[in-house]
């Protein structure tokens, strides 16, 4: 079989698939924590893409890695706050099913 060297496109493909999976999770999971996990997947998909670009397009500048690092940090912060909110929701709604939290309409 024709050995194609693992290139940027492969990484991007991976990132895309992971991202899609993450999106699917975000769109379908009822549990808020599960949704949060799905977003983590999407973050990771993005990070993969960033690091891949950094590796292949601007290897000297390391900009992608820097951004990815910041993303991880922000994601961590996001996760803490989101989980705090989830806890709050849980206390208020006696549950964390996202489709019950539909008071955003009207």
């Amino acid at each position, binding site marked *: 079989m*024709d*050995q194609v*060297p*693992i290139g*940027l*496109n*492969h*990484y*991007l*493909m*991976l990132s*895309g*698939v*992971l991202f*899609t999976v*993450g*999106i*699917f*999770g975000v*769109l*379908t*999971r*009822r549990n*808020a*924590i*599960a949704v*949060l*996990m*799905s977003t*983590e*997947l999407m973050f*990771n998909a993005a*990070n*993969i893409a960033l*690091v*891949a670009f950094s*590796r*292949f*397009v*601007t*290897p*000297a500048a*390391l900009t992608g*890695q820097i951004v*990815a*690092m910041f993303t*991880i*940090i922000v994601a*961590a*912060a996001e996760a*803490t*706050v989101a*989980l*705090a*909110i989830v*806890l709050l929701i*849980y*206390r208020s709604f006696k549950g*964390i099913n996202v*489709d019950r939290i539909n008071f955003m309409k009207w």
Partner: protein
Amino acid sequence: MTEISLTNLTFYILSFCIIAGGIFTVSSRNLFHSAVFLVFTLFSVAGMFVMLNAYLLAAIQVLIYVGAVAMLMIFGVMLTTRLADVRLRHVNEQSWPALAICGFFLAFLVYGLWDTPFTVSGVPMPADTAHALGTLLMTKYVLPFEVVSLLLLAALVGAVVIAKKD
């Protein structure tokens, strides 16, 4: 004969682990299982970072994601979810449209990424990226760095305040 590079194989294995972990994460009925699969996925991503010569980032990924975020998730799951609930539906009623749309999305993505001619630089990655990253963070990106530290502080305080019982 084309050299089957270990890199390629590692890539595919890791890719598989990532995607499979991801799929299980989003599809697992049991939330705790989801969290475990997530940790798995995150580890896999960290491995992928290594493949991309981003060692420091890989370390951070493991430390933060696996060590912190995943643990948070697990704590969250354990705090909020009665495990007896597993028999309840875990996905909402729009899973099929979402699946279709995601399929479309993936198709477009694949189609778009497959033959997009990215200008790939031939310059190899520096071996010691950690040093360079450290230098960059303290020089060129010092301001975002400080902002992020502030963000973390704010998130810390905010999380405490939000989650605090009155």
